[in-house]
């Protein structure tokens, strides 16, 4: 490593350097069942790639299809949109976590 950053713990072991991907937490939001929701990523200008993790939360129905929202990201405006899928009973609450690098 000729340049960059290298962080070591008190034992002298490197635990963070400029070869890793930073765990940048851009935000999270919850889209309620049957409803659309959106979230705006702050400082989107600092980020060139976003990553989405979608979770279905709480107890899911066991007698029918359970659909999570579809999620899209506008990389220019930083607006993350969650769109409900399925009918009112099929649509489930979706939790979205956004990371970026």
């Amino acid at each position, binding site marked *: 490593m000729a340049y960059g950053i290298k962080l070591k713990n008190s034992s002298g072991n490197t635990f963070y350097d400029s070869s890793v991907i930073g*765990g940048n937490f851009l935000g999270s939001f919850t889209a309620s069942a049957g409803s659309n929701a959106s979230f705006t990523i702050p400082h989107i200008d600092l980020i060139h790639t976003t990553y989405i993790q979608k979770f279905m939360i709480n107890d899911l129905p066991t007698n029918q299809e359970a659909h999570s929202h579809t999620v899209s990201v506008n990389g220019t405006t930083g607006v993350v949109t969650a769109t409900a899928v399925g009918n009112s009973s099929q649509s489930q609450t979706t939790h979205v976590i956004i990371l970026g690098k």
Partner: protein
Amino acid sequence: MGWGIHTKNDSGDLLISSDIKAFHYIGTPTYTGVQQRYNNYSGSRIYRYTLTSAETPLVFIKPANVNKFYAVLTHFNTGSSWTYDVIGSGTADEPPTLYAFAALSGSGSSSETHGVLVKDASGDRTFDSREKPLAIIDIVSATPPDVPMDGGATSTANVDPGWHGCSTSSYRTAMEWDFTSDDTHTDYNYASTNHNGNYMFAAPSIAQSAWRRNGYHYHCDGCGKWWHADEHHTVYANLGVFYRQAYKLTSSKLQAGWCSTKEFWYLYADKSSWAPWNSECNTSGSFGIPFSQKTVNKVSNSVIIADATNYV
């Protein structure tokens, strides 16, 4: 950015910033037990964990058995209390170890006096080397195959299970299919150069898949025979299995696959006649499968890979 710090990695990606908070290690969620066991085919367990965090956590799974598939199935949140259900394949209890990360707040109270500390305009910490910031090795967008079963897709055309009186196990045997899912997965490359046994991944399970087989049998003993009472033998049978998406991390591949979580079984076997030797052998209730012959929620989801060594 009027002021502050932005540090980028070797690829030009944002590494440390005074504007964006980084995830830091906040602890290992407490394992509280098994919520559900399913022991047929590839089997599965649903393991439960609890965690306290004022900030939204990101939970990683360090597999207890590297040959099994795991994923975060669901979570429940009330205030700062979080409960996570994690699914794992297999017919033995092998709960993984979870590692939780969240953004920091405030100025911190570590006694360590060295390292790197970055704050935002509000004075909240965005990065604190004393608090074990999350170092990601790779992020892979992964989806499982459409059909989870090693035996391939089932057909809804009726199979003939034959007549076996009230022997449920005989009907069941006739309706069987290779519903195992251990060998059905889509493989992805990841940055595995320094792979070790402490690698962990953050991965939600949202895709669901359900498949069924249908059975029907009819024959008549005595029909058309004047010397024999008519005996109508009728069988309806259904066997189905429900799956949830899960992942396995090998030393070179991320495998997006499935866990079988539940099965559905229905049997109606009836012998009817005007003579007094009728019988009827039914399962209680209906078949109950929520849907079948398809997969829902199969969309790309980010799988985040890191090394737990630094957080043990």
